[in-house]
């Protein structure tokens, strides 16, 4: 049974180990494989959520996907999906890639050069029994903006166009699982957001589990529920994506990648959400009232004050008690219990000025624009 690499400390909290009897584990694996000097040795279990795979260049992310798609036969170990053993060195089982039904979006695209874009997209689609085709090609073409490209040869496509075709081709197979290797790396911001939103929608609609390799914390934040950090072929960390993002951001230590506060909330009005009993002013959104949403607030955008501020453009002002203080070299991470538990990043100087210590009562304020509301 898989046992997780040593959990890392995140804001003073320990990430619990995965429970042994995770009921809905959709994919279970324990694979070892060597490639020249590199060796991958990972194990894990994924449920039907979206799992981000994060890690430095050369960590083994693509290698792991290659194993899980049946492309690369592991040296040893096992891969089980939905109760079916796809690979087991012990039992000498090695099912063909077809049985994996894990559609792959390759880092290099891998479009069939001798087929038009349409033929590429329809390749796997046509191989599915008709009553099994849950995702319509027409929909994919529309959403991924491919209609102008359908009759083109892959080698005439731009980088971003290739990635979209590869994505459409994979989705068109109505796969049991989706393996995405940096699928939006060469898309512009707008397309990237659209594609990510669509992936999320696909996941909600069809409950297709996804493994999503990305170097972008904001993509992961947006899309993933679970996350794995791979380093040198080993799982360094596994847990909820939001915690991973925080961990990665703090360990990166820079102010460029934000530490996020992430809450489950409910929409209570056109520009307000409630998180447990606290109501927050959020940017205007079109979510209907009572929608379950994820609310995230960047830790660096929260301001602390010892007195209640007056006539201020920050519309969210909460009162609470400092519960932990972690001093770093360039910043101090403080958590404040204010009905909700806020993680706040301040400078060491501010921390001193405000005499931040456990038990200190304090105001926390942030602007509506600091709040990101996304579907739960």
């Amino acid at each position: 049974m898989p046992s997780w690499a040593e959990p890392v400390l995140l804001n003073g909290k320990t990430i619990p180990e995965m429970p042994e009897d995770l009921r809905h584990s959709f994919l279970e694996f324990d694979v070892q494989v060597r490639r020249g000097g590199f060796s991958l040795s990972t194990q894990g279990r994924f449920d039907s959520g979206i799992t981000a795979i994060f890690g430095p260049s050369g960590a083994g992310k693509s290698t792991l996907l290659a194993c899980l798609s049946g492309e690369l036969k592991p040296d040893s170990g096992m891969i089980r999906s939905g109760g079916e053993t796809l690979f087991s060195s012990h039992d000498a089982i090695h099912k063909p890639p077809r049985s994996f039904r894990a559609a792959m979006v390759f880092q290099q695209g891998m479009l069939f050069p001798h087929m038009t874009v349409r033929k590429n997209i329809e390749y796997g689609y046509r191989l599915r029994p008709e009553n099994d085709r849950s995702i319509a090609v027409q929909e994919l073409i529309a959403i991924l903006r491919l209609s102008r490209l359908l009759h083109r040869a892959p080698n005439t496509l731009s980088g971003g166009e290739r990635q979209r075709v590869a994505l459409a081709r994979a989705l068109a197979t109505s796969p049991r699982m989706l393996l995405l290797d940096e699928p939006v790396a060469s898309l512009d911001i707008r397309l990237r957001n659209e594609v990510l939103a669509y992936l999320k929608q696909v996941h909600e609609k069809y409950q297709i589990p996804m493994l999503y390799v990305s170097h972008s914390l904001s993509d992961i934040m947006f899309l993933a529920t679970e996350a794995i950090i791979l380093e040198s072929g080993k799982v360094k960390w596994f847990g909820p994506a939001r915690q991973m993002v925080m961990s990665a951001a703090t360990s990166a230590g820079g102010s460029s990648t934000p530490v996020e506060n992430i809450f489950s909330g409910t929409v209570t009005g056109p520009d307000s959400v409630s998180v447990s009993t606290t109501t927050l002013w959020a940017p205007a959104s079109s979510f209907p009232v009572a929608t379950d949403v994820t609310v995230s607030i960047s830790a660096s955008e929260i301001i602390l004050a010892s007195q209640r501020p007056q006539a201020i453009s920050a519309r969210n002002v909460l009162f609470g008690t400092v519960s932990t203080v972690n001093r770093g070299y360039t910043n101090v991470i403080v958590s404040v219990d204010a009905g909700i538990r806020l993680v706040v990043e301040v400078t060491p100087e501010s921390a001193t000025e405000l005499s931040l210590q456990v038990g200190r009562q304090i105001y926390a304020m942030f602007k509506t624009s600091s709040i990101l509301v996304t579907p739960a």
Partner: protein
Amino acid sequence: MNPNLDIIVLSLRVATVATLIIAPIGLLIAAFLVRTRSRWRFAVDLLVSMPLALPPVVVGFALLWLFGGEGPFGDATRGIAFTWFAMVLASAVVAFPLVVRSFVAGLSQVDPRLEFAARNLGAAPWRVAITITLPLARRGILGGLLLGFVRAFAEFGATIVFAGNIPERTQGIPAAIFSRISTGDFNDAWALAAVSIVIGGGALAVHNALVGRAGTTQWEDDSRNA
């Protein structure tokens, strides 16, 4: 030219059948050579290439021995020599190494990751072979078929030894040319040679049309000339 027409038809038929026989076997062997790590690879490679290393006449004698009553198959295959089918066999054996070499070149330029992409999308191996491998190797495959057909069409040495030179039965264009030359019928000989070249050119044209303009890149395609 009427007898010549029969000769031409016979040669076309023999070369076509020979090519059709070689193609699937050649593909299997080429796939074996390209895609396996078997210790037998070199042995198979050598066996397949052998007819190339021998003068066709020698190949003819070898076939005569192999399929004759003294050969390993004994009397079972004795009826083959000096028939239409012997022509097919002789040309097939001689053309085979060329076909396999070309197939090997074609198959080995197919990126296995593209084949995997197809399998990943749900295709069974045979479907991958038909829809991905063969089309991507088409330059080598078609080139091999062209070489095979033309070589079979022009085969003389092995054929005349193994199939004889029986007018109206085993006398194809090459044997006919040889006979015409020997008897000093040079005009007829050159006419038949010209026919050979025309048919070879036709095969080449068909080949070129089928191969199409491969190898265009993003910047270097034909849209500009369109």
